[in-house]
């Protein structure tokens, strides 16, 4: 729709367009922009959380936190968690989508069962896994001991590296269905002729996956990776409820650190400073990521 000069109609349309987006913008300003600005503003103060009274300290909170080992350590933990759980989600999600795309027995039941972890609440997921992990009555230890895999009960959540592995696995279990949903939907729209053509060219199943399926999935994967990366990076409930950041600070990611500063130490200014830095980190990653994927797409 190339156009040189805006017609009256088009101008009226753009007005209508603005009108339609107005509620969104309004809500955004009220519930997101305002709190965001408050957060940035608060990060310049030293603030006692329950009163939200405090004195201006300028950028000192930022200086303190960047100099603190705890920040860098939590950032590292956060990255390990994000990369670990995200890659499992993607790999397992694509694999499962491919399986569920085939004509297996009771396919829709299988699909429902696979998607179920995504639908239950984090609270439920944590409860169930804590019960599975239970040191005395947990079925997991019992089964593994029965199978001769281990001799003594494993401490899944209280020691390292078990705790990190457990958290990553539970995270992957909880969120991989999201990848399955999106990939499965995309798989259904890949034209069959593409596979026919590949088969005629003599491509085996593996070659077909890499030559046909993966390029077709690329677009959807780019979006999924970004969305999931953002969510995983700022995941709070799951880790907080599962390990509370322990043992010591081994699974204390940045959102947990923010929570601790804000509500255990009552340092709201510091907490918001952490959060602002967190946002900046994600922003940088996101911009780089979008750039990269855009240029590769030739957009």
């Amino acid at each position: 729709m190339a156009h040189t000069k805006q017609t009256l109609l088009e101008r009226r349309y753009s007005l209508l367009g603005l009108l339609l987006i107005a509620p969104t913008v309004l809500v955004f300003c009220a519930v997101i922009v305002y709190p965001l600005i408050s957060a940035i503003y608060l990060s310049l103060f030293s603030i006692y959380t329950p009163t939200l009274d405090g004195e201006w300290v300028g950028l000192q909170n930022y200086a303190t936190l960047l100099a603190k080992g705890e920040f860098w350590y939590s950032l590292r933990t956060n990255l390990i968690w994000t990369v670990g759980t995200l890659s499992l989600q993607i790999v397992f999600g694509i694999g499962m989508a491919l399986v569920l795309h085939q004509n297996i027995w009771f396919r829709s039941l299988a699909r429902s069962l696979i998607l179920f972890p995504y639908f239950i609440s984090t609270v439920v997921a944590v409860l169930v896994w804590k019960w599975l992990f239970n040191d005395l009555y947990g079925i997991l230890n019992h089964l593994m001991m029965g199978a001769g895999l281990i001799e003594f009960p494993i401490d899944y959540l209280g020691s390292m590296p078990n705790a990190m592995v457990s958290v990553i696995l539970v995270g992957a279990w909880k969120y991989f269905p999201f990848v399955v949903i999106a990939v499965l939907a995309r798989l259904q729209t890949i034209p069959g002729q593409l596979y026919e053509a590949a088969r005629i060219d003599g491509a085996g199943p593996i070659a077909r996956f890499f030559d046909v399926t993966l390029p077709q999935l690329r677009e959807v994967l780019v979006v999924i990776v970004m969305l999931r990366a953002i969510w995983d990076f700022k995941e709070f409930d799951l880790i907080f409820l599962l390990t509370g950041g322990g043992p010591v600070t081994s699974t204390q990611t940045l959102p947990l650190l923010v929570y601790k500063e804000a509500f255990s130490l009552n340092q709201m200014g510091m907490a918001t400073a952490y959060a602002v830095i967190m946002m900046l980190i994600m922003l940088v990653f996101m911009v780089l990521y979008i750039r990269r994927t855009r240029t590769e797409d030739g957009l």
Partner: protein
Amino acid sequence: MTIRKIAFNLFAWTIVLMVAFPLFWMLVTSVKPQSELFRRPPTIMPESWTFEHYWRLLSDTGFLRYFTNSVILSSATTLIVVAIATLGAYSLVRYRYRGRETLAFLVLFTYLLPSVVLILPLYLLLVGLGLSNTILSLVIAYTTFALPYALWLLRSFMAGIPEDLESAALVDGASRLGAFWDIILPQLLPGIISTALFTFILSWNEYLYALVLVNSDSARPLTTGVMNMLITSFNIEWSLLMAASVMMSVPLIIAFAFLQSYLTSGFGAGGVKG
């Protein structure tokens, strides 16, 4: 060939059952009497079945109230968010005005906000509006994370609807909004349903906002209600917890069973576009 097929099926189902094992274990635990839980080694199938935990939840605790709250809360959030986001997405995709691209990018940016930071300013705002401790306050809070998500999803669905359809209607003399109502909405329905489902799930499962923003049983949703009621420092009753977990998950599973096809087909229709 058939042997390969059977082997593949067995392989597929082994994985499916492993993924679903926690669901199975949740069900089994919820019908075991408390005394059997502390058996070592644990019994795989319950030796005696009991539904007393479900009964206790329904009769002795505030479970039903929390449940009702959650239903109202999630439905209201879904309704509001999807309505706003549909209009917004329509505008973003089909209209041209300055700042459109920036706006779309800003939407994504709001994704980046960790909820932990938004809580206190948001809480002050809600108190200022006189809404503290109400379900409505949670609806507003949930909008912060549900709206960007819904807008983003719907935008990609909308982009998948061929523009020709709308143009044809316009040529036939339909008004722009008329065309939206008659042409776009029906086309968008699968997308709307799957967005609604996702929004519903997000709000049904949220924990942190509910923990901080609401402290009255009359507005408390299931997530914090159950944690508060059953995870206490003086007792952990696993079978009761598992019964509660089952009942918390059932509505979503039912809704999902009905809407499953929309979920995947909706996603496919537009492809998820960046």
